[in-house]
C-alpha cells in the first residue's frame, strides 16, 4: 500500500478496502525499518498515531469522514505540535515541547489526518542540504552518499522512501522546491500569505511560507486546500477565498503561455538539467501550451539580495532565544550577559551563527544603508521583473536546481557554493510568488525537477499544469531502489 498516492489511499479508506489503523501500522513499520539509515525523522509518534488512526476508523465507520480522514502525514519539525517535542533541528530547542499547535497542524488534525512524526531539517531551516541539523544529516533515498536537499530534507526523504505518503515543509528560499527536486517529488510553495505562519518557527518573516511535499500534484492539491486560507492569528495571512484546487486540476492547458527566462540557462546550469527542461516543454507544447522567451534582467541579484534580507530578518527573529523563557540554557551563568551569550553560543550551530552575524552586521549602524536598504531596493527590481513578465505569460518555467543531488560534505566548506544551489528559488520568495517543483527526468540516475512559477495566488494553475504533465509522464511514479 505504500506505493500508492495519498489520493489513491483516500479512495481505499473511503471504500473500506483498508483501515486507517492498518495504513498507519504499515507506515510506522517502514519508519522503524528504514529511518535508522535515512535519519528522516527526529520524533516518531507511534502511540499517538495509532490512537488517532483508530478514532479516524470510528469516524469512517459512522460515515462522517472528510476527504483526509485517516490519512497519515509527517510534519517538518518547524511546526509547533502541542505536547510534542518541536526542535527546529536545533540543540537550542532540543528540550522544547510545544504548548500549542501551529494553525496548519491544527487544521490537518481537525481534518482527521494521522500524524506519524516530526521530520528532520536544517537547523532553523537554514541550509540546502539538511547537513546543518543538530540531529545529523538526512540521506537521499536515491543515493545514500548524497544529500536530500534542504531545509525540508527529512520531509523529502521520508516521502521519497515512502515512509509517509505526504509531508509538510516550509520554503524561505527554496526549502520545499529544492529537496522535492532532488528526491523526485512534487513540492509546492504557495504565495506569501496563502498559508498561515502561526506556530511555524520564524526564520525570515517576509519570506517564510508553508507548503507540502507529495508524490503527485493531485496529492498536493488535496492537502493545500485543507491548509490554505485566512488565519486571524497570522498578521500577514491574506483574507481571500481558497479555490477548489482538486476541481481545477483538469483545467485545459490549451493556450497556456509559458515564459522561459533566458537567464535561467546561463553558466552554472548543468547542461543535462537544461536538456530535461526542454524535453518537459515539448510535453507542454503537445498539450497545447505556447512557449515564449522572456527575460528577468535582475535575476542575477536574487541570491545576493536574499543573503542580506534573510540573515537580517533571522538575526531579529532569533533574538528571542535568550536562555530565559524556553530553550537551551548554559550551565552556571555568572551574569545575565554570560547567560545570553553562552546559551546562544552553545545552542546554535555554525550556519545559524553565520547568518545571525551576517544579519547583525548588515543591520548595524553605519552599514544599514549600504547593505539592508540597498537589498530592499534590489528586491523591488526582482519583483518588478516578475510582474512585467506576467503581463505576457501565465507561468514561468525553468530548472528547480542547477544540478542533481550533490554529495554529503561536498559543499559544507564554502557557504557561497551551498547558497548558489538555490539560485532559481530565492527570487520567487523575494517576490512572494508561488512556485512548484515536479520531477522531470533523471541525470546520473538522480531525479531532477522542473520549477513552475506562477503569478500571485495562482496556485490552481500551477497545480493543474503539474497534474497534466504528470498524466503524460511517469517520472513521478518512480520509487528509489530498495524502497519499492
Amino acid at each position: 500500500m505504500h506505493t500508492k498516492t495519498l489520493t489513491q489511499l483516500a479512495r481505499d479508506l473511503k471504500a473500506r478496502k483498508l483501515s486507517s489503523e492498518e495504513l498507519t501500522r504499515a507506515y510506522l513499520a517502514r519508519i522503524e525499518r528504514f529511518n535508522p539509515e535515512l535519519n528522516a525523522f527526529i520524533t516518531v509518534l507511534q502511540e499517538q498515531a495509532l490512537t488517532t488512526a483508530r478514532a479516524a476508523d470510528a469516524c469512517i465507520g459512522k460515515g462522517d469522514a472528510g476527504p483526509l480522514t485517516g490519512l497519515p502525514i509527517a510534519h517538518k519539525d518547524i511546526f509547533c505540535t502541542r505536547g510534542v517535542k518541536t526542535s527546529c533541528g536545533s540543540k537550542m530547542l532540543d528540550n522544547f515541547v510545544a504548548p500549542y499547535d501551529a494553525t496548519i497542524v491544527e487544521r490537518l488534525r481537525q481534518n482527521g489526518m494521522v500524524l506519524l512524526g516530526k521530520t528532520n531539517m536544517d537547523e532553523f531551516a537554514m541550509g540546502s542540504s539538511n547537513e546543518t541539523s543538530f540531529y545529523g544529516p538526512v540521506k537521499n533515498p536515491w543515493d545514500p552518499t548524497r544529500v536530500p536537499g534542504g531545509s525540508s530534507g527529512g520531509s523529502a526523504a521520508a516521502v521519497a522512501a515512502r515512509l509517509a505518503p505526504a509531508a509538510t515543509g516550509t520554503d524561505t528560499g527554496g526549502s520545499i522546491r529544492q529537496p522535492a527536486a532532488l528526491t523526485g517529488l512534487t513540492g509546492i510553495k504557495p504565495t506569501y500569505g496563502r498559508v498561515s505562519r502561526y506556530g511555524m518557527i520564524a526564520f525570515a518573516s517576509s519570506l517564510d511560507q508553508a507548503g507540502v511535499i507529495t508524490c503527485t500534484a493531485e496529492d498536493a492539491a488535496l492537502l493545500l486546500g485543507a491548509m490554505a486560507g485566512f488565519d486571524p492569528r497570522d498578521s500577514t495571512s491574506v483574507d481571500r477565498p481558497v479555490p477548489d484546487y482538486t476541481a481545477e486540476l483538469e483545467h485545459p492547458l490549451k493556450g497556456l503561455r509559458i515564459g522561459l527566462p533566458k537567464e535561467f540557462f546561463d553558466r552554472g546550469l548543468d547542461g543535462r538539467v537544461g536538456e530535461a527542461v526542454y524535453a518537459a516543454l515539448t510535453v507542454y507544447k503537445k498539450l497545447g501550451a505556447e512557449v515564449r522567451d522572456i527575460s528577468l534582467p535582475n535575476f542575477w541579484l536574487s541570491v545576493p539580495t536574499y543573503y542580506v534580507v534573510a540573515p537580517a530578518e533571522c538575526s531579529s527573529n532569533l533574538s528571542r532565544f535568550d536562555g530565559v523563557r524556553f530553550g537551551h540554557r548554559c550551565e552556571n551563568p555568572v551574569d545575565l550577559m554570560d547567560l545570553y551569550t553562552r546559551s546562544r553560543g552553545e545552542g546554535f550551530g555554525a550556519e545559524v551563527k553565520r547568518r545571525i552575524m551576517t544579519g547583525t552586521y548588515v543591520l548595524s549602524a553605519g552599514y544599514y544603508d549600504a547593505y539592508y536598504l540597498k537589498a530592499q531596493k534590489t528586491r523591488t527590481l526582482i519583483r518588478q521583473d516578475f510582474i512585467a513578465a506576467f503581463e505576457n505569460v501565465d507561468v514561468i518555467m525553468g530548472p528547480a536546481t542547477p544540478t542533481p543531488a550533490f554529495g554529503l560534505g561536498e559543499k559544507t566548506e564554502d557557504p557561497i557554493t551551498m547558497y548558489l544551489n538555490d539560485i532559481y528559488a530565492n527570487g520567487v520568495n523575494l517576490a512572494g510568488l508561488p512556485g512548484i517543483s515536479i520531477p522531470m527526468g533523471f541525470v546520473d540516475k538522480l531525479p531532477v525537477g522542473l520549477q513552475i512559477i506562477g503569478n500571485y495566488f495562482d496556485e490552481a494553475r500551477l497545480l493543474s499544469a503539474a497534474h497534466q504533465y504528470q498524466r503524460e509522464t511517469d517520472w513521478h511514479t518512480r520509487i528509489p531502489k530498495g524502497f519499492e
Partner: protein
Amino acid sequence: MSLTPDDVRTIARLARLAISEQDIPRYADNLSRILDFVAQLDQADTSHVAPMAHPLSSLTQRLRDDVVTETSQRDLFQENAPQVDAGLYLVPKVIE
C-alpha cells in the same frame, strides 16, 4: 571586504553569541566571503527605486477589535522554562 578577528568579536557581542577564540578565524573568513558576495548589489542602479520590505505591499496592517482573545496559560508556558520560581522566570542577579 575583509573582516578582522576584532570585527568578528564585535559582531558576536552585538549578536549575543559566545564564539570560541579558535573559531574566530573561520568566521572571519566565512563572513568576509559572504559580504564580498553580497557586495555585487553595488553594481545595480537603484537610484530611483523604492525599497521593498514585504511581498504584499498593498497589504496594510490588519487591525482587530480591542477585545481579550487570550487566556493566561502561564503555568503551561513555564513548563518549558529553564528555571522558574513562584511563576517568575529566574536569571542571575542583575542589580547588586
